[in-house]
C-alpha cells in the first residue's frame, strides 16, 4: 500500500472516530506497549481519570481474551528450543459521539460459538447487581473447563462498560467463525 491508498484508509479510520487500530499477532508485548500508549493518549486528551481507567481495563480484558483464545495462530520454535505460539486478533479503540469504545475481533471455533453466545447473552441480560453477583460466584467457583484465566473476563468487561457492550459473530467457513466484542464507556 502506498500513500494514495493509505491516505483514504487512514481517513476512513479517522472518520469513524478510531483513535488506534491494530491487526495481527496480539502478544503480551503488544498489550504492554499499546496499554501504555492508551494511558498516555487519555492523559493527553485530558479524559476523565475514571473513564481512562475503565477504558484501560476494557482493553486489558479484551486483549488477554485474544491472547488466550484466538484460534487464528501460528507456532514455531525459538532459538532456545521452546515453541512460541502467536495468536491473531484485531483491536480498535475509538470514540463514537461522547462514548469511548474498545473492540476486539478474533477467530473462534464454530463449535464453541453456541456456548459463547449463550454466556454473553446471559451476561448482557444482567443489571449491575446481577453482574456483581455473577462475578462473585464465578470467582469463588472452579475455573470453567477450557478457561485459561479466571473465567470472569467477560463479566468484568460488562461491569466496566458503563455505556454498554455488544458482541457479534460472522461465519468464515465450516470450521471457523469471526467473533467480536465492543464495549463502551
Amino acid at each position, binding site marked *: 500500500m502506498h500513500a494514495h491508498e493509505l491516505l483514504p484508509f487512514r481517513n476512513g479510520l479517522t472518520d469513524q472516530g478510531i483513535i488506534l487500530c491494530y491487526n495481527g499477532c496480539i502478544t503480551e508485548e503488544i498489550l504492554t506497549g499499546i496499554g501504555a500508549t492508551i494511558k498516555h493518549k487519555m492523559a493527553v486528551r485530558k479524559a476523565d481519570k475514571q473513564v481512562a481507567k475503565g477504558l484501560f481495563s476494557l482493553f486489558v480484558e479484551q486483549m488477554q481474551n485474544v491472547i488466550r483464545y484466538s484460534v487464528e495462530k501460528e507456532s514455531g520454535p525459538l532459538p532456545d528450543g521452546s515453541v512460541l505460539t502467536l495468536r491473531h486478533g484485531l483491536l480498535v479503540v475509538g470514540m463514537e459521539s461522547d462514548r469511548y469504545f474498545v473492540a476486539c475481533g478474533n477467530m473462534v471455533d464454530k463449535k464453541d460459538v453456541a456456548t459463547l453466545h449463550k454466556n454473553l447473552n446471559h451476561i448482557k441480560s444482567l443489571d449491575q447487581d446481577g453482574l456483581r453477583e455473577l462475578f462473585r460466584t464465578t470467582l469463588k467457583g472452579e475455573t470453567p473447563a477450557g478457561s485459561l484465566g479466571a473465567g*470472569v473476563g467477560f463479566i*468484568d468487561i460488562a461491569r466496566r462498560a458503563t455505556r454498554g457492550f455488544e458482541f457479534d459473530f460472522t461465519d468464515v467457513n465450516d470450521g471457523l467463525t469471526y467473533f467480536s466484542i465492543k464495549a463502551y464507556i
Partner: protein
Amino acid sequence: METLHIDGTDRTPTLLFEFDANRYLLSGESYPEDVSEFYGGLLGQLSDHLNGLQGATVQFDFNFIYFNSSTAKVVMRLFELLEQTAARGNRVTVNWHHEEGDDNMREMGGEFSEDLHQAHFNLLSKPG
C-alpha cells in the same frame, strides 16, 4: 522467616511480605502475563506461614491502582485465607486503599470484604 520484597513493574505489584512482623502489602498494578506464575508460589508461602499462627496480629494492605479479572481471583483467595486466619484466633486487619473518586476500586474492596466476619476491614481513601 525472611522478608519477601519484590519490586513492582508496569504489570505486577510491589510485594512486601514481612513474615516476622506479620505485615503484608500488595501495591500498584496487577495484570501479569501469567497470574499463577506470579502469585502461585507466593500464596503458598503465605498460606503455610499464616496457617501456623496463633494469637498473632496480622495486617494486610491492598493498595492497587488497577488489577485485572484474573488477579481478582487471587485477591478473593487472599481474603479467604485472611478470614480463616482470623477465625483461628488471630487479630487480622485488612486495609483496602483506593484513590479518591475511584468508585470501582472502592466497590471491589467492599465486595471482597463481604466474606470477612472475624477479620477487621478498613476502606481507606487517599488523594488521587
